[in-house]
């Protein structure tokens, strides 16, 4: 459904490794066409020329950073996986649980080019000595599920999956696992629990999944877009990948950037990593008539709000990280001048409160409390001290207080909305602080 807003003639193999094969009519690229257009060449090259060590080194030197939002080096992650002749072979898991508010890139890749993901997973499986791959797909992505199932069957029939992959003596297969809802499944250790058929509560780290993941075996979890970048790196090399972003960014490659909100042409573009927010908003045709841009989220609901002046920055992990926000998934959500930051923040915190798995107290109890305060401010019934309390909560929900990044993710838009738009929150305060209901209990009397 979502569209690349660059026409087929604009997208080329050398410059648009993720999208150059995509059709303007959005129909999926099937095996025959994929093979005709260099498809699975990277697997052939890998089986002929690489060991799992040299392959990991290649991806590491390409500086491919995780496109699911965290930006961790994929090659480095692979280098940390327990592997070797004496280690049991584990799993490569594709995180296809795309549910980050404002993010609509992985759906497009899976619906329209499932073989690119499968090829990337085969290579990642080889690099990590995995015996099996799982694509963990959110349950609502019915069209992607159909496209992947067909592509897996076709790839298996053509010898790219299964026993003795293309006569190499190496066995590897991939299965599709569809989810049953809940945002928390996108957290990698919660995802592993869900894959094991359990409640999707995150796990404590360490041990990291690379040491002990699914069913206690070494497990690597990578995002869809991350894996889709891997075949290009193997085909053309780490230097080519680095050069794709030129001088724009120290991160290699291209990025599927996008915009949603009240712009003229919301959509997706594959652009060099480090493209500015201004350029992306320009491609989207700017704001709809009569509106101007007040704020924006750089890459999903768990990133911090920024101001129009930040649109001139390169959208990459380090540059956006320096603002105190995060690039996240790199799909911009824009807020128009006539939209309330208090209401939007309330909406975001309602989301995080509902989607908390309930495992850690600050997250389970803190997030509904923040929603209560935000609803009061939105209704103009806030009390003095509410804003300071929200700020305190944002600190207490920050990194290190809970098992996973769900609560810190919720804290980021909350803290930044108050930081940049405090006046909007202050307008919601109409009452002085309520009277205490009882005298404080003297110290020592309990």
């Amino acid at each position, binding site marked *: *459904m*979502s*569209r690349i807003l660059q026409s087929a003639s604009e997208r080329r193999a050398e410059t648009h490794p993720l999208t150059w094969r995509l059709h303007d009519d959005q129909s999926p690229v099937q095996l025959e066409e994929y093979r005709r257009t260099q498809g699975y060449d990277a697997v052939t090259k890998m089986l002929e020329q690489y060991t799992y060590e040299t392959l990991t080194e290649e991806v590491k030197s390409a500086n491919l950073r995780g496109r699911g939002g965290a930006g961790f080096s994929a090659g480095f992650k692979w280098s940390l996986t327990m592997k070797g002749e004496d280690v049991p072979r584990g799993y490569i898991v594709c995180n296809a649980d*795309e*549910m*980050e*508010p*404002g*993010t*609509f890139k*992985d*759906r497009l890749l899976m619906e329209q080019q499932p073989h690119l993901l499968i090829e990337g997973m085969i290579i990642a499986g080889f690099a990590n000595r995995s015996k099996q791959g799982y694509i963990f797909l*959110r*349950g*609502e*992505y*019915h*069209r992607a599920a159909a496209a992947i199932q067909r592509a897996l069957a076709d790839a298996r029939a053509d010898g790219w999956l299964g026993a003795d992959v293309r006569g190499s003596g190496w066995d590897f297969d991939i*299965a599709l*696992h*569809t*989810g*049953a*809802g*809940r*945002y928390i499944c996108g957290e990698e250790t919660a995802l592993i629990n*869900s*894959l*094991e*058929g*359990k*409640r*999707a509560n995150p796990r404590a780290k360490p041990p990291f999944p690379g040491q002990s993941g699914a*069913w206690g075996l070494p497990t690597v979890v990578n995002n869809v877009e991350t894996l889709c970048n891997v075949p290009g790196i193997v085909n053309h090399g780490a230097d080519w990948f680095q050069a794709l972003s030129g001088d724009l960014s120290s991160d290699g490659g291209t990025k599927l950037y*996008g*915009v*949603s*909100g*009240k712009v003229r042409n*919301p*959509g*997706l573009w594959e652009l060099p990593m480090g493209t500015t927010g201004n350029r992306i908003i320009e491609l989207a045709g700017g704001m709809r008539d009569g509106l101007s841009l007040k704020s924006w*989220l750089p890459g999903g*609901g768990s990133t911090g709000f920024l101001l129009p002046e930040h649109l001139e920055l390169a959208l990459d992990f380090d540059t956006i990280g320096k603002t105190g926000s995060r690039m996240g998934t790199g*799909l911009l*959500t*824009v*807020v*128009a001048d006539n*939209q309330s930051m208090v*209401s*939007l923040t309330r*909406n*975001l915190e*309602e*989301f995080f409160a*509902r*989607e908390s*798995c309930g495992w850690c107290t600050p997250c389970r109890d803190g997030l509904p409390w923040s929603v209560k305060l935000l609803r009061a401010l939105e209704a103009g019934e806030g009390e003095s001290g509410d804003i300071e309390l929200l700020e305190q909560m944002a600190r207490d929900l920050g990194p290190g207080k809970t098992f996973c990044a769900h609560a810190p993710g919720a804290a980021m838009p909350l803290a930044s909305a108050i930081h940049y738009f405090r006046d909007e929150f202050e307008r919601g305060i109409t009452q002085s602080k309520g009277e205490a209901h009882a005298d404080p209990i003297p110290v020592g009397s309990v």
Partner: protein
Amino acid sequence: MNQTTASSTTATIASDAFALDPADREAILEERAHYPYPQAACIEALKIVQKRHGHVPDGAIPAIAETLGIGVANVEGVATFYSLIFRQPVGRHVILICDSSSCFLTDYEELRNAFIAHLGIQMGQTTADGRFTLLPVCCLGACDRGPTILIGEDLHGPVVPDEIPRLLEAYA
């Protein structure tokens, strides 16, 4: 199978009355073979039952547990965690309305209110004729087309309130 997690009398009766369809039992056993441990097939087993019955009746929980050879509580815990596993009867068509930030910014609340008014039910409820259930859902990943909804397996967006009656005609 004497075990049951059901606490209320009605649920116990339902549990006693429930029998897994043989085809479903077969499908669950096939799923079980895909994973190294039977627990892993739990979510898929719940989805198999839900596909036939529209929701997962209480009695299905011990039946699935027995089929997979895992504890009843292990099935119940999973069945109550996931938002797309329905533990109560739902309508023939479940309408999932995206309530995440991008759809919020493209006026999802107006759309939600229009659905509520048109169907005469609140979020989480089912129409008296058993045709539609309204539920919220996380970001549907089609933010460039907000506000978006999913009816059954069909994604729609952007949806404007005026087109609701015509849109729903396709879902008898």
